[in-house]
């Protein structure tokens, strides 16, 4: 490679982009585990990136830490616990299910159930309210046509 080329390459080299070849574990299975774990860990200085996606130096440190622990023979759960011990729950992109996060995990399903219950109640309340179940009476249809103009 030419020298000018190399100079530009060095200028470009400042931020290291996400996972790099030099940090990978030689064992493919272990590396795959490291990648999977990294995808669930937040780069704590970034906005909303996992350490697997981030090019921040701190993310690289954490990636190396995860791989170091895996190389030592720790299980996935052990590695995660080890990182959480150092950085707190903040580092987990999938927050644990606990009292504080109950609404986060159950909220959407609660909305669905409440909505379904409301719908059933509304349908039960039924015939008394509106005995007329025709879609539009002739008068209403004429009114609609008059207001909306000709449709063709």
């Amino acid at each position, binding site marked *: 490679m030419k020298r000018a080329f*190399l100079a530009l*390459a060095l200028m470009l080299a400042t931020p290291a982009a996400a996972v790099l070849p030099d940090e990978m574990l030689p064992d493919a299975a272990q590396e795959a585990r490291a990648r999977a774990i990294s995808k669930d860990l937040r780069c704590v200085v970034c906005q909303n990136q996992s350490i697997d996606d981030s090019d921040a130096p701190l993310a690289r440190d954490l990636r190396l830490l995860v791989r170091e622990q895996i190389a030592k023979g720790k299980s996935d759960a052990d590695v995660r616990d080890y990182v959480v011990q150092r950085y707190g729950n903040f580092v987990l992109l999938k927050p644990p299910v606990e009292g504080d*996060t109950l609404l986060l995990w159950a909220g959407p399903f609660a909305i669905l159930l409440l909505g379904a219950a409301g719908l059933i109640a509304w349908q039960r309340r039924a015939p008394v309210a509106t005995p007329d179940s025709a*879609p539009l009476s002739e008068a209403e249809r004429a009114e609609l046509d008059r207001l909306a103009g*000709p*449709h063709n």
Partner: protein
Amino acid sequence: MLAEIGHFALILSLLVALAQSVLPMLGAIRGDAALMAFGRSAAGLQALLIGLSFACLMTLFGQADFSVALVANHSALSQPLPYRLAATWGNHEGSMLLWVLVLSIYGAGIARFGDNLRATLQARILSVQAMISVAFLAFALFTSNPFARLFPVPLDGAELNPLLQDPGLVFHPPLLYLGYVGFSVTFSFAVAALLEGRADPAWARWMRPWVLAAWVPLTCGITLGSFWAYYELGWGGWWFWDPVENASFMPWLIGTALLHSAIVTEKRGSLAGWTILLAILAFSLSLIGTFLVRSGILTSVHAFAVDPKRGVFILAMIIGATGTALTLFAAKAPMLRSGALFGSVSRESGLTFNNLLLMALTAVVFLGTFYPVIMEAVAPTNKISVGPPYYNLVFAPLAAPLLILVTIGPMLAWKRDDLGALARKLLLPVAIIAVVLAGLALWTGLAKLSAALGLALGAWLIMGAVLVLVRRWRGAGGFSWRLVRTTPAATIGLVLAHAGLGFTTAGIAAMSAFSAEKILVMRPGETAAAGPVSVTMTGAEEVEGANYRALRAHFSVRQNGSTHGLVSERRLYTVSGSQTTEAGIGVSVLGNQYVAIGDVQQDARGQGLVVRIYWHPLVGWIWFGGLLMAMGGAASLSDRRFRIGAPQVRTPLAPNLVPAE
């Protein structure tokens, strides 16, 4: 001079908007036709003035007039002209101006194409629309004036963020704004209906084109944004559950719900209250989307302190608009006619469940986006993060039933259907999909069963869309060309949109299960493989661009016996010093080959370039699906029964109320 003209036009438009927010409303209350007519002229005038103001700003950017602070801070002489012009909205102040411009264009649209609306309803809508204008114009003028001058005048400006110097990004924000701001119209429709105490089928029919007019560009904007992230950010992700993306996704989900509930209100007069509520929510979420995200509150609560005036203004606006509308809703909703009832197995029921599921999905995105902020406030010791693993886990089980329902819904009869008839209609489609699923499962194996399920869901959706056409064309008395020719545009819209959803689903399923990647150090002459893709680096060089220098690598890519070349670049923008990645992408129907280059690094065999090779199966289907959905919306919009402002000629063709297919 131009800056002053633009500024002055903006001030005038605020005054016009102030008058428009009061007089037509007064006219509607008093039944004064002249006051109501004033609303129509004012809306047009407002659009002209803001258009003039925007044109001034754009010209200033075009002339590179660095005596205007905004121009100096966001464009440089070395930037190509199209990007200098696009820089007009590539910043806070300019994008605010674009926002009010779009708002005023929609307002003028209601004035121009709303001739067939009830006069009092139109007047009220225009007034509400003007109230929103007043708030935003005041915000722009008092906290984010785009025309502020700069002294001393610099010789050259600071560059626009290079990431934004891209054709995708030129159109992405205006499209999103068309969507966000479009929901201001439905918001105005909802508030006007509440003020009138009437939300009938005619109201829903008038509103539906405006929902579509917002939904179509929003769909395009989100699709384009996802595509841009894919090819520009350099690692081939297409959706990151980033707060900024979520901000556009929430109004889309609620807008989709609104689109469907408005059908029920239009056809059957039911769910009017619910439709109004969704219309209010869609706009609230659009406001939250554009502004809370922009204010930086999502990264930290304290970011608001950076510019407290703007933050407080934004918050007041969101609370004011949403709060007022919801209070009005609480007071007036009981007075709305509840409309016709429907059986628990009916088209209406199907659409209601569609709405419930979309609400639940919106809740997933909303909670995921805001929970960390809320936690920081209520339990500062237990800070949490919410990322893709949460969304993927909670979103999928709620999305799956919705996708299953999408194909069943159009088979249901309005008002009341019975389970036996439904079962008979479903028998063949379910059998076909069962066979497809079994075949896919055999091919993928148990480990990737979720991918088989996802692909089968995609097939289910596409088949469902085709069946809608088949049923329409066959009719009661067998196939006829007349039925083909008279297919309403709205039916074509449904078919395209639902099929699009199927393509997107299949693409997502394939991407999440079968994508392959390889990251390594390569030197010219070396070969590496990721999944079915084999890549050889053929050379590397340095190149000069208009306003950047780049490292460029050439690759020869082989797959299934065919070979072609790809080029990948890493650019250094000389003015700002920032870098971008231009990945080399080989596109095909079955998937994309994606090659990106990184730094120079050492490995066992010496120095080389870091290369990322990816195989992205069916990834193009994700955006193709989005495009189909948008086309479906556009087709629906062209349906003749919505043709707003069509000449009042009576032609004795075709039945007037087309079936809701």
